[in-house]
């Protein structure tokens, strides 16, 4: 037997047989299988139920024009829009401060921004409950100061839901805004000042336009999160204000109307996917989430 024959008889290394890309596919195979069986399969189940229950056809989708469903959709859109607007304004200010702070102060501030992310959303919603209820900290304080006579209605309404949601969403707005602002060359602002622009003009004509991709990215992100939000609206809305996620939960768990619940879930998913597609046309996702 020749020497080459002996070499050929050795098992070839794995990466030679699969190619470099093949090896990486192997790495993500478990995750793909997991997603397929526990995510995509049930998801298609939901889609299927929405056209199969209680009887086959598009009957569930016809309910979209019913008054109850319409109200839920409108409430959801309104709360999400207000939450997004408030979150972006507040988050923009924080991100702007973060960019301009000394590195030391920035580290502490980042801790402040990220800390809430490590606390359960449930715990935070109940914390807001103690703050906002009629006998809560905020109302007692305002009454003690004599600013109000009657307690303000800060929860069981859209205001309470919005407060809780803005708090939850802030880090998700601040991080992409900060990433975008970090990329703005500070010399551009100096150049604007040198050309005769006041601080305000330099901000409005140079900084703000250059931070627009960050605003759009953060805005769509927060809006999408808000659309499907469940815990905070459920606790701070107290069943009086129904957003879509809670409505779905009630349909399925309390009323056992699987078809209607599944239809609403499908509508929600379609809305989110449409928004994501729009976003992808405006901003570079990889840049927005720091993959570069």
């Amino acid at each position, binding site marked *: 037997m020749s020497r080459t024959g002996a070499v050929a008889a050795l098992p070839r290394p794995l990466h030679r047989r699969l190619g470099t890309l093949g090896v990486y596919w192997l790495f993500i195979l478990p995750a793909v299988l997991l997603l397929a069986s526990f995510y995509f399969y049930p998801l298609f189940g939901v889609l299927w139920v929405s056209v199969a229950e209680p009887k086959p056809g598009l009957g569930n989708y016809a309910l979209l024009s019913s008054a109850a469903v319409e109200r839920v959709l409108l409430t959801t859109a309104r709360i999400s829009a207000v939450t997004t607007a408030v979150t972006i304004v507040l988050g923009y200010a924080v991100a702007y401060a973060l960019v301009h702070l000394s590195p030391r102060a920035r580290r502490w501030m980042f801790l402040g921004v990220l800390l809430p992310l490590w606390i359960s959303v449930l715990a935070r919603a109940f914390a807001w409950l103690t703050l906002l209820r009629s006998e809560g900290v905020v109302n007692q304080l305002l009454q003690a100061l004599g600013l109000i006579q009657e307690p303000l209605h800060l929860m069981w309404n859209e205001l309470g839901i919005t407060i809780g949601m803005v708090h939850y969403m802030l880090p998700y707005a601040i991080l992409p805004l900060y990433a975008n602002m970090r990329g703005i*060359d500070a*010399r*551009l602002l*100096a*150049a*604007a*000042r*040198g*050309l*005769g*622009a*006041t601080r305000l*003009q330099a901000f409005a*004509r*140079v900084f703000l*336009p*250059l931070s627009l991709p960050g605003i759009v990215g953060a805005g769509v992100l927060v809006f999408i999160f808000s659309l499907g939000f469940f815990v905070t609206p459920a606790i701070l809305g107290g069943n009086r204000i129904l957003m879509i996620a809670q409505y779905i939960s009630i349909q399925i768990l309390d009323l056992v109307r699987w078809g209607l619940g599944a239809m609403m879930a499908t509508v929600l998913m379609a809305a989110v996917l449409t928004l994501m597609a729009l976003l992808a046309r405006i901003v570079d996702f990889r840049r927005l989430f720091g993959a570069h």
Partner: protein
Amino acid sequence: MAELKTELTLRGLSKHYGSTLAVDAVDLSIGRGEFVTLLGPSGSGKTTLLMMIAGFVEPSEGEILLDGRPITPLPPERREFGMVFQGYALFPHLSVADNVAFALKVRGIARDEIERRVAEAVALVKLGGLERRLPRELSGGQQQRVALARALVFRPHLLLLDEPLSALDKKLRGELQVELKSLHQRVGLTFIYVTHDQEEALSMSDRVAILHRGKVVQIGSPDELYERPATRFVADFLGRSNFIRGRVVEANGGAFRYTAGGEHFVQADAAAPQQASDVLIALRPEKIQIAADRSPETANTLSGRIERWSYHGTNFQMTVATEVLGPLQVQVPAWRCRFEPKDGLAVRLGWDADASIRVGDDEA
């Protein structure tokens, strides 16, 4: 108002950052229409000085006067100085025309007036036809012109330029030096130019201020600085130089004799130094005459051997090892070199009494 000869005056201008002194008590007067270059290595304080003039950096001490008026407390937007930044700092989201129009728009000037002046400025820097492009669609040289047009369009008191050519390749840099110089003559504006490139400084400026460790070491016309450097640093930074350390043995009207390495040399000097004092002599490589077969007919002569040599097209550069003064750099125009340089070749060197110059020793 009477026409003032001096436009910008710096009086005892200093800037410290903590305990480090970035700019150290600089006094400087810049005349109307002058092209003045602040030249120095990185860390010499030249950019800090420019930023104080522009208003971006607040001086720790001292005063800045424009036409005799103090402007030290004014923010940059109220100084009306045009500025070209290092790397240009063009607004990436605005077209060429909008970049140029920026200074006019923030001043609330009427739209048709803006259009007219933008067209004028764009033509001045020869950018016609590119008005609608974005900065990233332009070459480095074109971006540089946009930055110039943007800084000139609002008719500033003076133009500040922070290393405007440093990002360009060598050939383009040469072309733009010529253009900048001619632009300066056409607009008749005072230019204050910061660079670390001595060639740029020499070829464009009316006057050059050499900065070293936050101080202005010497200020003068390019040839003055090159021919009569005041200190070792200036002689070394502007071009190259050999340095000879010696001791004065005899001084009389207009010249002195000194010893170095055990031999006597002659140095022309209007202000003769003290007998027996230590002196430092700067001798430019191109001012040394070199011959293989005979001694040059100069006041000072020396023998040595070629240690290294290289050919540069227009000239030969050699390192000649001498017993008396150690290695000396010599530069000879290639067409005038009467012998074939070879490693180890014995040569005679010579220079006239006024070919070298006594300089202050600031490197100690």
